[in-house]
């Protein structure tokens, strides 16, 4: 089925926020908002759930911790025991203090890189990927709200357009998919 997308442009984030509130209260589903900076409090209005990136960070961190422990145990205890500073060198547990800084560093490394890569993948913004925002001006001083007709089956395209126009927009763009 052919879908129609509306791009409503605003020149003020507060106007956009009020507009979104008004539309959502009428039962309209706002798909996405594009803005040059984070707009405080827009997430709950358009019904965006809290990010789960933190959970992934924890999992990446645990991965790093495990890898570092396994790696160092193999390098320093099993494969080639070394006598560093006269410490007992045939047991991981007795030397654990010496291994903690590296474990910590590797945990942070894995968590940070994993998070960054996940973030880019999830947002489809890996280097070289096509830009997602509908209008380059949303990286400057304009704010765009995206609505899809297919997600608002309660309303016809004309009704939707009329409602959007009442919210103080400066420009309205449409696209058929």
């Amino acid at each position, binding site marked *: 089925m052919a879908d129609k997308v509306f791009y409503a442009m605003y020149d003020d984030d507060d106007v956009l926020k009020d507009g979104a509130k008004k539309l959502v209260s009428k039962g309209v589903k706002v798909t996405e908002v594009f803005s040059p900076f984070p707009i*405080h409090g827009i997430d709950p209005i358009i019904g965006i759930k809290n990010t789960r990136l*933190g959970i992934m960070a924890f999992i990446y961190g645990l991965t790093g911790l495990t890898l570092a422990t396994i790696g160092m145990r193999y390098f320093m205890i099993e494969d080639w025991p070394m006598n560093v500073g006269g410490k007992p060198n045939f047991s991981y547990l007795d030397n654990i*203090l010496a291994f903690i800084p590296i474990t910590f560093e590797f945990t942070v490394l894995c968590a940070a890189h994993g998070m960054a890569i996940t973030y880019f993948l999830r947002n489809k913004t890996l280097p070289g990927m096509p830009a997602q925002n509908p209008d380059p001006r949303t990286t400057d001083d304009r704010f765009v709200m995206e609505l899809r007709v297919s997600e608002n089956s309660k309303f016809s395209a004309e009704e939707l357009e009329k409602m959007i126009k009442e919210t103080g927009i400066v420009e309205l763009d449409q696209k058929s998919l």
Partner: protein
Amino acid sequence: MEFKISNKAKTVTLALIVIGAVFMGIGIAFNMGHGEHFGTRFLVGALSNAFFYFSIGLGALFFLALQYATETGWYATVKRVIEAVAGFLPYGIGLMVLILVVISIMDGAHIYTWMDPEVVAHDEMIQEKSAYLNMIFFWIRTVAYMAIYYIFWNGFKKRSLEEDRVGGTDIHFKNYKKGALFLVFFSVFSSTSSWDWIMSIDVHWFSTLFGWYTFAGMWVSTMVVLVLLVLYLKKLGYLEKVNDSHIHDLGKWTFATSFLWSYLWFSQFMLIWYANIPEEVTYYINRIENFKVLYFTMFIINFAFPMLILMSRDAKRNAGILTFVGLIILSGHWVDAYIMFAGGSLGALAEIGCLEIGMALLLGGAFIRIILMNLSKAPLMPVNHPFLDESLHHEI
């Protein structure tokens, strides 16, 4: 909105003071017979408890100055809570000075052995340090710390109440300057005062990290007290403008500062363990021989509990979890403060018995009561803070 101390709070704090006094009485009655050793034990208990509560008040003053110096906005709605905790400072100063005077009169009372002329006469290492560690200079420094802390606290308090009446931004900029100035003083004093009061107990030993370690312990205890106090006031229906985001921020501070403390504790421990130089390891050998279980349990609960439990966003917004973790951290840092003082002075003779717990309860009751009294002396919400509007709309 004015805060009134509820009858329940009055009863509970009074009960804490009475139970503490009874415990102390039992402790004194059972240990009196130990003569000189008892005097040392009593003073170590008093000093470590006084320092623990004093440091929470001082931590609150530092935190307030930090907010002023960084022109922070979010904290405006909980500013009076921070000020109330900082308001314990004059009492804490009085208590610390009183105990230090008693110890000085008793030639160090086996706590500060460098105060005892007989010990110094036979100890070349202390003689080498005596340019810094001598009674006169010690008291010059102690008086200087206390006077400067008090002057800054008094100024912040006065200007905060004046701001409510006058408004405008003049007071804000004055606070900004004074806050930055306080941080300059505090950055030096937090280190040197912990050398004077705590590190000099283990007089042959030194660690350049020690000041930060003490300071981090102070900071995390302060953050816990702030969280608990805000949650308590919220529960009673005060501070209705404080939302989940403010509590989340305080929870983050608790989380972050307990990491800071763990990091510094571990850095000090690991470097000394690794280098294994006799004059450095004595500090830990003493603690491992005399407080093995307590010392490492204390580290694990102060590190692992906040890390594992407070890591998620939801936990930092949950009053029950915050209270639970907060009380555990607080008791952990109380043990930390005790071992700091008792390790070098009492060593094998140290024990946490009725006496020490009684003192903790007695002073704890008085501490809570004084903070609540401070809260009732000023309106709970500042009216003319320039960032109040930002704080009211705080959302993270």
